[in-house]
C-alpha cells in the first residue's frame, strides 16, 4: 500500500496537497460542493489580521492570457476573531487539517494575532505571510533579513504550533531571507508568494490595477518558484519546504517534490478548476503505485542527487 502521508516537521498531513492562502476563500468552505475538506492534505486560511482589512478597490484582478493573472486584492479579510468564531468550529466539524495564515502591518500586529490564536486549538501550524505585494510595507518583512529574523523569532516564542514563513520571490537572493528564518528557528519555508507585475490598459492608457502593481500568479511563475526552491533546498536540505507557484496538475506537483518541496499548495489553479487539488492527490497516488513507491516522500529532493555529476558548472 502506497502512503501519501507527509510530515512537515512534526505536522502530519494525510497527503502533500494543500489549498493556498487567498485562493480558497477565508477557510475553504466554498469547496464543500466539490469534495470533502478532509480529503485534502490541508487548507491554508486567507491572511488574517488582528482587525478586519477592507481590501483594495476594483478592478482587483486582470488575466494574463495563457499565463496566469495579476491580483491586487489588498488582503481583504474578516480578522482573526471572526475566523475563530465562525470558521474554526466548522473546520473542526469537517475534520480538516488547517493552517492559519497570519499578516500584520507591523511586528506588533503579527504578535497580536498569534497571541490571540494561542487560546484556541484546531489548527496545525501558523503560516506567516511575510510577503504581500498589495499593501504598503507588505514586502518589508521578506526583503530585509533582520526584520524577517525578528518577526520569526518573536512569533516562535509565543506560538504553540509550528511556524512556517511564506517568502516573497521579489528579492535577489532568496537564501538570505531563508537563512534569517532558519536562524530564527522556522519550522517550514513556504515558497513562493506572487511575483510583482503590472498591466497597462491600452484604452485608458493607464495601469489596469488601481495600485498599478499587482501580484503575478499562475502557470507563468512555476519556473521561478522551482528555481527558488532549488536554491533553498541546496542550502537548507533539512528545513521542510512547502512549494507553491503555478501548480495545476500532477506533473507540476511532481516537479516541485523532486525539486525539494516536501508538500505543495494549489493556488490560482483552483479558480479555473475547483477540483484541481483533489485531481492532483489522485494523480500522486497513481504515480506512487505505478512506480512502486511505498511513500511519496521517497522522491522529495531527488532531482538534486544527480546534480554534481551532470550539471555543467554547478559548484554549489
Amino acid at each position, binding site marked *: 500500500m502506497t502512503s501519501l502521508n507527509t510530515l512537515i516537521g512534526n505536522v502530519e498531513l494525510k497527503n502533500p496537497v494543500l489549498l493556498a492562502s487567498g485562493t480558497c476563500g477565508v477557510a475553504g468552505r466554498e469547496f464543500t460542493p466539490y469534495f470533502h475538506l478532509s480529503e485534502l492534505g490541508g487548507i491554508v486560511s486567507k491572511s488574517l489580521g488582528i482587525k478586519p482589512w477592507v*481590501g483594495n478597490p476594483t*478592478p*482587483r484582478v486582470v488575466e*494574463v492570457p495563457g499565463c496566469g493573472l495579476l491580483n491586487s486584492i489588498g488582503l481583504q479579510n474578516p480578522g482573526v476573531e471572526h475566523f475563530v468564531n465562525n470558521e474554526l468550529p466548522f473546520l473542526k466539524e469537517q475534520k480538516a487539517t488547517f493552517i492559519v495564515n497570519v499578516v500584520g502591518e507591523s511586528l506588533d500586529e503579527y504578535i497580536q494575532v498569534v497571541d490571540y490564536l494561542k487560546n484556541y486549538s484546531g489548527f496545525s501550524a501558523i503560516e506567516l505571510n511575510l510577503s504581500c505585494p498589495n499593501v504598503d510595507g507588505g514586502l518589508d518583512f521578506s526583503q530585509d533579513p533582520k526584520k524577517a529574523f525578528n518577526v520569526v523569532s518573536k512569533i516562535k516564542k509565543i506560538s504553540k504550533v509550528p511556524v512556517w514563513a511564506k517568502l516573497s520571490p521579489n528579492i535577489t537572493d532568496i537564501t538570505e531571507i531563508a537563512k534569517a528564518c532558519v536562524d530564527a528557528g522556522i519550522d517550514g519555508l513556504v515558497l513562493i508568494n506572487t511575483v510583482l507585475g503590472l498591466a497597462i490598459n491600452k484604452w485608458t492608457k493607464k495601469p489596469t490595477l488601481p495600485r498599478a502593481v499587482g501580484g503575478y500568479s499562475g502557470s507563468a511563475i512555476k519556473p521561478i518558484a522551482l528555481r527558488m526552491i532549488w536554491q533553498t533546498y541546496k542550502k537548507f536540505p533539512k528545513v521542510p519546504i512547502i512549494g507553491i507557484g503555478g501548480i495545476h496538475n500532477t506533473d507540476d506537483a511532481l516537479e516541485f517534490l523532486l525539486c525539494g518541496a516536501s508538500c505543495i499548495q494549489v493556488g490560482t489553479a483552483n479558480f*479555473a478548476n*475547483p477540483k484541481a487539488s483533489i485531481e492532483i492527490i489522485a494523480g500522486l497516488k497513481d504515480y506512487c503505485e505505478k512506480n512502486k513507491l511505498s511513500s511519496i516522500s521517497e522522491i522529495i529532493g531527488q532531482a538534486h542527487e544527480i546534480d554534481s555529476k551532470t550539471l555543467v558548472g554547478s559548484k554549489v
Partner: protein
Amino acid sequence: MISIILSYNISMSFNQTLIKAPLMKNVQLGKDYFVSWFCAPEIISRINPGQFVMMESGQYLLRPFSVYEIKEDNIGFLYRVIGGGTSFLSRLQIGNIVLINGPLGKGFEFPKDKKIPILLVAGGIGIATFPIVARVASEKGYKVKTLFGARSQNDLVCAEQLKHSGELEVITDDGSSGRKGFVTELLTAELHKNKNQEVFVCGPTPMLKSVIKVCNEFGIIAQVSFEEYMACGYGVCMSCVVKSNGKYVRTCVEGPVMRSDMVTS
C-alpha cells in the same frame, strides 16, 4: 416540454456542481450573437432564474455567463462575441466538451404577492438573463413586461421570445428600432404609470447606475444583477466585489442579483 425546479439559495449554502458538458447546438442569432446549448441535467435541476455559471472557454480563467434558457436536459447561454473566450465558444463543434461550474450566485426573487407586476429592464447583452426569468414568472402567473435598450436593431436579440412571456418595449441608441434614446426613458414613463412594480435590472455598469438613480427617484428598491470581473465565480478569490454597508462583498456569492439599496459603489 420545458421544466424547471426552483430551489432558493440561502447565503453561503452552495448548491452548484462541476461537470463536463457536451455542446449540443450552436445557434447564431445575429452578427456577433450566439446561443450555445450544452447537455447538463445536473445543473438544470438546481437553477434559479438570474443565476450564472463559470464556463471553460479556452482561456486561462473560466468565463461567467448567465443562464439564458433551459430546454429538457439542455442549458443555453446567450452571448456576444467580444474576445477570446466568447469567440472560442462560438466556434465549438457539436460534441465538444467543456467544464461548467454552476449554477452560481443568487438569482432574482419573485414578489410574494402575485398581483405585483414584474418589470424587466435590460441594457445590451444584459438581456441574456431575462428570457428564463420572464418565462418562469409568467408561468407562475405574474404579469411581465420587458424594457430593452440596445445599440441598434441588430442588437435586439431574443425579442420575439420575450414577447411570448409578456409585453416588450424597445429603445435603441440610434433609433433603428423603437424610439431613439435610453432605456431609462422607458422606465421613467413606465413608473409614472405604475410605481407598484417589482423591478429587475441587468446590463452594463453605467446603465445600472442610471437605472438605480431613476428607481431611487420613485422610491423603488430594484433587484439589480451586477457584472463585475470574476476570476473564480464561486467565492474564493475576492475579485468580484461591490461595496455594501462599507464592506466589499462578493457579487458571485452575495449576488450577482442584489437589492439596489444594499450597494453603494
